[in-house]
């Protein structure tokens, strides 16, 4: 190996400075990347980049010079360099794909450079518990609510042209590995009419979906067992799955290049002022306005109160807990301040299985009417599968331990029933992730809280947040900077429905 490298170096020297050399590197994929400056495609860089190396070598020279000169770097003001700035205009709590999408769109929409100062506060830079990176990464338009369909369509359009939006000059292009294999929903006899109604809604909204009869399904995908299947709905375009880590890092890289500050810390408290007002009915309302966000450094007692104008709660599964710090939900039970933010973490398992004789490359993301789903992962005969547990069997959420018995009891039987080839499979690995589950109606909450004047919410998407993140980011940035939704009207997702207890149920939750 080293002899080959030496040969390369000699050849480089011989051919001269301006010639390009081919250097190959092995990258490990998926989780474990802490240095987001590395390329977002899973191949390695194919050419030496003069300017990137120049910057690095200049920085190294400066450091060497500073070390060589006499004098120490001690300063009487021992400030932790990782502290967030003392003030920012918009503090986004939560560095998942939703938070970074909002940060990117805020910077995209400001009309002048450095129009708004945005910082994103994320407490875990390894993203070990974040819902984004533990997601199965699917995107579909097959929802029953038109707003959800529009969100998915807009996000799919964004992701197809991702390099136009998130490409950074002189950096590698973004490769989302968007597999356009589509979703295949299977319906039994009793829910087939719902599927037909949904089909009409989806076609009306512009999604390219087709209904298939069981025989058509069998023709298209011979490996499916169509017993008990009455109807199937197959997405023809803009549906499939992609790499969520790549999307997150693409948003992050672009947002940071546009001037968003990233801060690693945990929000422990808010400093707010309260204004007591009386409504027309004589009810006493306390309107709060957040003045400071207290960010605590990891592994220490240092904290920084960040003065801010707007706070965006994009904390995902932990948004409910964050809202409690503001006193939302801690008031008397029959008043507005007694209604908590109904978002809580729900654990979901994903199992990676290997089946050598499984379905081929055109396998869609199959979702059975029982709730069991699976999709192809990579090209080596691996698939990922899972199911949402029943309400009464929800696993506890204190950790992300995987229950392998769950696979044996709940997933494998129905999977093997639907796809006979899966009777012989081997579970190679599994992981668990949290849904930011909206216990009220399993749909996102987007908008300002009625009692906290400057806290925006973009959370509670219950498993379909990742696929909606580009469009939701755009919507929230329109709310903040333009005052109202401009491209997609998501006012149905506001807090009003929670206050008036009118759920907006989405029928197609997986």
């Amino acid at each position, binding site marked *: 190996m080293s002899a080959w490298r030496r040969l390369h170096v000699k050849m480089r020297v011989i051919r001269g400075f301006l010639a390009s050399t081919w250097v190959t590197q092995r990258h490990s994929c998926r989780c474990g990347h802490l240095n987001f400056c590395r390329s977002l495609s899973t191949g390695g860089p194919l050419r030496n980049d003069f300017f990137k190396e120049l910057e690095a070598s200049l920085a190294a020279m400066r450091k060497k010079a500073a070390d060589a000169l006499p004098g120490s770097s001690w300063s009487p003001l021992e400030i932790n360099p990782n502290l967030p*700035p*003392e*003030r920012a*205009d*918009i503090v986004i709590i939560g560095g998942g794909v939703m938070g970074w999408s909002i940060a990117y769109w805020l910077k995209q929409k*400001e*009309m*002048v*450079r*450095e*129009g*708004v*100062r945005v910082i994103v506060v994320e407490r875990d830079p390894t993203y070990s518990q974040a819902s984004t990176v533990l997601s199965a990464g699917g995107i579909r338009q097959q929802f029953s609510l038109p707003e959800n369909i529009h969100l998915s369509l807009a996000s799919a359009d964004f992701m197809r042209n991702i390099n136009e939006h998130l490409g950074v000059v002189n950096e590698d292009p973004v490769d989302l590995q968007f597999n356009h294999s589509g979703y295949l929903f299977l319906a039994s006899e009793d829910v087939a009419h719902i599927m037909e109604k949904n089909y009409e809604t989806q076609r009306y909204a512009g999604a390219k979906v087709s209904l298939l009869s069981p025989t058509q399904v069998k023709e298209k995908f011979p490996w499916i067992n169509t017993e008990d299947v009455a109807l199937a709905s197959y997405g023809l375009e803009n549906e499939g799955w992609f790499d969520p880590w790549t999307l997150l890092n693409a948003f992050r890289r672009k947002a940071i290049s546009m001037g968003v500050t990233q801060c690693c810390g945990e929000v422990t408290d808010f400093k707010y002022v309260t*204004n007591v007002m009386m409504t027309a009915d004589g009810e006493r309302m306390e*309107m709060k*306005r957040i*003045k400071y966000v207290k960010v605590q450094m990891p592994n220490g007692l240092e904290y920084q109160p960040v*003065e*801010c*104008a*707007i706070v965006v709660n994009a904390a995902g599964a932990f948004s409910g807990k964050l809202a409690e710090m503001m006193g939302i939900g801690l008031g008397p039970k029959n008043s507005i301040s007694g209604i908590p933010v109904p978002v809580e973490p729900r654990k979901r398992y994903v199992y990676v299985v290997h089946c050598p004789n499984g379905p081929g490359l055109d396998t869609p993301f199959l979702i059975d009417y029982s709730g069991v789903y699976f999709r192809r992962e990579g090209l080596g005969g691996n698939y990922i599968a899972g199911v949402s547990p029943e309400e009464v069997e929800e696993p506890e959420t204190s950790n992300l331990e995987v229950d392998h018995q769950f696979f044996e009891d709940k997933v494998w039987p129905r999977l093997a029933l639907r796809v006979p080839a899966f009777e012989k499979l081997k579970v190679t690995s599994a992981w668990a992730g949290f849904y930011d589950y909206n216990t009220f109606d399993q749909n996102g909450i987007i*908008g*300002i809280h009625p009692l906290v*004047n*400057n806290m*925006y919410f973009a959370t509670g998407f219950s498993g379909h947040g990742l696929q909606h993140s580009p469009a939701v980011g755009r919507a929230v940035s329109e*709310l*903040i*900077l*333009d*005052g*109202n939704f401009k491209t997609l009207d998501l006012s149905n997702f506001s807090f009003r429905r929670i206050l008036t207890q009118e759920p907006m149920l989405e029928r197609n939750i997986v």
Partner: protein
Amino acid sequence: MLKILIPTIMLLPTIWFVPPKQLWSSALIYSLMIAFSSLIWLKTPVDTGWSFLNLYMATDSLSTPLLVLTCWLLPLMILASQNHASAEPINRQRAYIMLLTTLQIFLILAFSATELIMFYVMFEATLIPTLIIITRWGNQTERLNAGTYFLFYTLAGSLPLLVALLLLQNSAGTLSLTTLHYTPLSHLTSYAHKLWWAACVLAFLVKMPLYGAHLWLPKAHVEAPIAGSMILAAVLLKLGGYGMMRVMTMLEPLTKELSYPFIAFALWGIIMTGSICLRQTDLKSMIAYSSVSHMGLVAAGILIQTPWGSTGALILMIAHGLTSSALFCLANTNYERTHSRTMLLARGLQMVLPLMAAWWFIASLANLALPPLPNLMGELMIISSLFGWSPWTLLLTGIGTLITAGYSLYMFLMTQRGPLPPHIIALDPSYSRENLLIFLHLLPLLLMMFKPELIWGWAA
């Protein structure tokens, strides 16, 4: 003269001995009384001579308007700081008002000084309380940077001034302004004399600021708390203008040739800083750059050394002092509610705070020199005397006026009109204190329309 100065000095022990509950109201009423009694300076029988004479201090028609402006500003500063300082411990509040008062004392001494060294010492002395106010009570970490820029730019500019003044003392025997105008200085032909001329004006040009040496101003204005911004914009910049007008009389005939590059810088600065204003996102930064723009016009007016030029410069200094200070107060009312100086985040405020929108309107109109406000009078006199000096300057000043109107309207439309974001619907209504503050800024401006002779200086 001492009638005003001694009470101002006595305000210092008053601040420290007053019980905490009455601190702000007593400081306000005391300084308001001093401000009203300073109006007697305006009643002078003679147009050209010195009045209210003392061994070391006197007023004449050049320093009187600036002195009255200084005395008027202290109660306004106390009114403006009341809200944000109330969160601090009582001794810090006392220290804050003490700093404002010492600044006031130094400024009164500076504007009324008859001896140039005394003027110089007071000129430098005003830097210290301002530096303390910016670095201690400013809002961000950048305030240390801002304080450093502010201090060192001014000090570096004024050290040559000290040397030049001592040189003058050696050659002329006296530096008293009362007699210096009458001792003609001849043989000002060698290269050393040209350097001496530059040394004399450089300090004031940095303070004004002239376009090339203006970098300290946006930093200092943005990072300072509201009272710091007010006194900086309203009075400290005018110290530069005043000093230049005093010193220029003895620098003839060198000024005819040597002032060319500085006039060019000043005029170019009007356009450049005006254009920068159009791209600003931070409200206070925008008002700071607009200050540089207006003071560029003042600098050009002083440098051409014509009667109309000096008169226009003086009028514009007073009018701009009041207008700029009013704009900073308005920006502060925004900041105290939304905690952000970014213009993009506080839009459509006309819906929420309509009276404040009216004040914004008047202040923006004053900024863009709407007739018949004194802002226009000053600008017009400077522009016409510049035209008489060279017709080509009309191009630069005309475009400058256009850009000034552009960014003033942009600032008004951006903050008051437009869509109202949902997070600023529920804001505190305007306090009477804030309304009174802006009213007290705009009242003198509107009254000066009716009696401009007060601020004309020596114009016939």
